[in-house]
């Protein structure tokens, strides 16, 4: 730990926002490996492991977890700063399903034995978790999921299929939503269960995405047996727990950073072609910058609410809807600007800063994952506008 003595605090929340921001910046500059900064794709475990272990050893891996469980115990205000600085810096994203979803799930709903067993192994990098939610016939309509767990003596027997499972190939555990009561209303028969990926009957098949990356996979369960104790929280309460896990962190789906980084890339591209002063470019670029600035105002308005202890309602969906739309429009224009260079399979001249296709593909996914834009609009229409 001594190597990271400069980046510790008895209470990070007691630091001023400025001081904490400065600390996060210094931490990143001093410790983040150069070669994986601003990665063009989601990194696999062998590539990102060194950074994960640095975060782990420094105690900076689990910013939102309480101190007692080995986290940084950051308040909402400090957490906003943490993520803002990490995204600005272009820090590589670690396999964070265990950190962001399973950890809070166990902390809030898990048994003492589950917390003691699993949390330290996440922090140590011994367990990498993936999230088993979506299924072929349960995407936007997640509650229609059909993977089922049937109790047989002291074991759950699991059959079914998950899909779009991010980094499943790197994980040794999966936390899955499974049906434990087929007779109940669809939201009321779902439970959380923990399954080792090396259990007999688990098969992983990687899926190549549109950007030709093997970021996600299908996961098949064929008579997979796990101990009865691997169920988290109450039986048939999985849907409610999953919903409650999505607290104010939903604001991060609307962070301006993706679009802001795409905008910076757009300017790089225009400079590369000598078009940065071109009147047509300046007009389009100015429009994006103003949209960006308005989005930041909206983000800050909601962040202020979080900082002052308020609870974000369904209106937070406006942020994701707007950010991903802007992200797409910027990357679509970059592709147009790149002309035939936009047809290339790799970055222009091998320069990662001149890569019109990478952000374009990422932006395609952004309006689909974590609730499509159409689902966000459905939610907003009903919850915010009160439409039938």
């Amino acid at each position: 730990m001594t190597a990271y003595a400069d980046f510790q605090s008895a209470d990070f929340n007691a630091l001023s926002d400025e001081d904490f921001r400065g600390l996060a910046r210094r931490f990143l500059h001093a410790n983040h490996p150069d070669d994986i900064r601003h990665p063009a794709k989601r990194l696999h475990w062998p590539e990102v492991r060194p950074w994960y272990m640095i975060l782990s050893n420094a105690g900076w891996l689990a910013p939102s977890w309480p101190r007692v469980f080995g986290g940084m115990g950051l308040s909402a205000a400090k957490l906003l700063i943490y993520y803002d600085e990490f995204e600005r810096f272009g820090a590589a994203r670690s396999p964070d399903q265990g950190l962001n979803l399973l950890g809070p799930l166990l902390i809030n709903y898990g048994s003492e034995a589950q917390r003691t067993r699993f949390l330290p192994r996440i922090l140590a990098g011994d367990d990498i978790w993936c999230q088993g939610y979506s299924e072929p016939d349960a995407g936007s309509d997640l509650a229609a999921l059909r993977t089922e767990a049937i109790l047989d003596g002291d074991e759950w027997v699991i059959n079914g299929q998950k899909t779009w499972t991010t980094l499943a190939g790197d994980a040794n555990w999966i936390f899955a939503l499974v049906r434990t009561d087929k007779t109940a209303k669809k939201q009321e028969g779902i439970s959380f269960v923990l399954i080792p990926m090396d259990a007999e009957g688990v098969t992983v098949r990687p899926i190549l995405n549109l950007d030709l990356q093997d970021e996600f996979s299908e996961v098949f369960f064929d008579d997979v047996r796990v101990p009865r104790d691997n169920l988290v929280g109450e039986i048939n309460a999985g849907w409610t727990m999953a919903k409650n896990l999505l607290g104010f962190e939903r604001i991060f789906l609307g962070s301006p950073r993706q679009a802001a980084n795409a905008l910076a890339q757009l300017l790089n591209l225009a400079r590369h072609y000598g078009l940065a002063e071109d009147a047509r470019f300046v007009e389009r670029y100015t429009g994006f910058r103003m949209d960006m600035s308005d989005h930041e105002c909206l983000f800050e308005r909601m962040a202020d609410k979080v900082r002052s202890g308020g609870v974000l309602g369904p209106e937070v969906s406006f942020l994701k809807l707007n950010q991903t739309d802007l992200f797409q429009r910027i990357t679509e224009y970059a592709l147009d600007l790149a002309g035939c260079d936009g047809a290339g399979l790799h970055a222009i001249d091998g320069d990662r800063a001149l890569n019109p296709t990478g952000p374009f593909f990422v932006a395609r996914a952004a309006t689909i994952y974590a609730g499509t834009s159409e689902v966000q609009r459905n939610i907003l229409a009903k919850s915010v506008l009160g439409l039938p």
Partner: protein
Amino acid sequence: MPRHCDCSARTRSWMQRGMSHSADYSATLVMIRESVTGVADRADLQRVRGLRFGGGGFDRATWTSICDLGWIGLRVAETRGGVGLGSGAYCALAEELGAGLAPEPVIGAILAAAFLEGEHLEAQLAGTSLILPAWQKEPSALGPSDGLEMKGGGLFGVRRYVTAAANADAFVVVGQSGAWLVRANDPGLQVDIVETQDGGHFGTLSFDGAQASPLDGDVRGAFADATLATSAYLLGLMDAALERTIDFLKTRVQFGKPIGAFQALQHRAVDLKLQVELSRASVEDAAARWEAAPGALASLAAVSRAKARCGSAAMLVTRQAIQLHGGIGYTDEHDIGLYLRKVMVVAPQFGSVELHRARFAALVSPEGA
């Protein structure tokens, strides 16, 4: 006549109590917003409708109660007899005026007050005299146009697009070389009236040796204020138009259900609400920046950003409001059309979307936000 102005004295005393404390300040904003309801009620546009076209666009009694409420002195320092509140308070006022489609030239009168002193300022704040600004020559401009000339003690030139000119007792005439006060009945001034879509009018002012006394004022500050207030007016307006439209979607039944149950219309309504929320965030940010650093280029850029957003969003929301109302939306009889017609008059004022985009680009470095 305003229906109830009993809150006027209360509001004024709140406003004048020195609003540096934040609890007091947010209470002030609430009081300001509530005080508008007596003059321009977003739920009842009957008065606004009645003042259109032949209705005069303006009645003195309402104007007097507006002045009694202290609104015209909102941005005038307390040492000069005003209330001395900030941009945030002004935006709250303008937003509510927009929500009620108030036809009174409040923003113009506040702009003029920034150039007045002594008895003229007193009369303006008291409402015994209505003095309005005349500063524009081109159809769209961000600030005072050129083309005014003082020769032999008389003022020469033309100012167009002067809101409510026929109701004015005098004009603050602003050019690039100075500002002057000219009485409306000066023999060297001819006022021609152009009717506008909202049922009001512009005046075209032709000065031919009009007697003019020089004035002083912070041109940049006064015009930024007016630009921001116009943005806030458009914000309130689009918010009210969308609120009415959503109510309509909930009650209008076709195919056996409220049309708001149809996903195509739900999604459109959400997209419009997003524009309203972006406009609100943009205006509030610009107001906070202007209050923190008045006159700074970054603050001015934020004002331009807010005006561009509100101008385009108000147009979008009020056009779509017509579409979502269907056939009834295309009648003059239905109030939803009043919002679009008002946007057509207000959105171009203090600079088009195009001009504000260009100014934003000029004020912000390429990498800046």
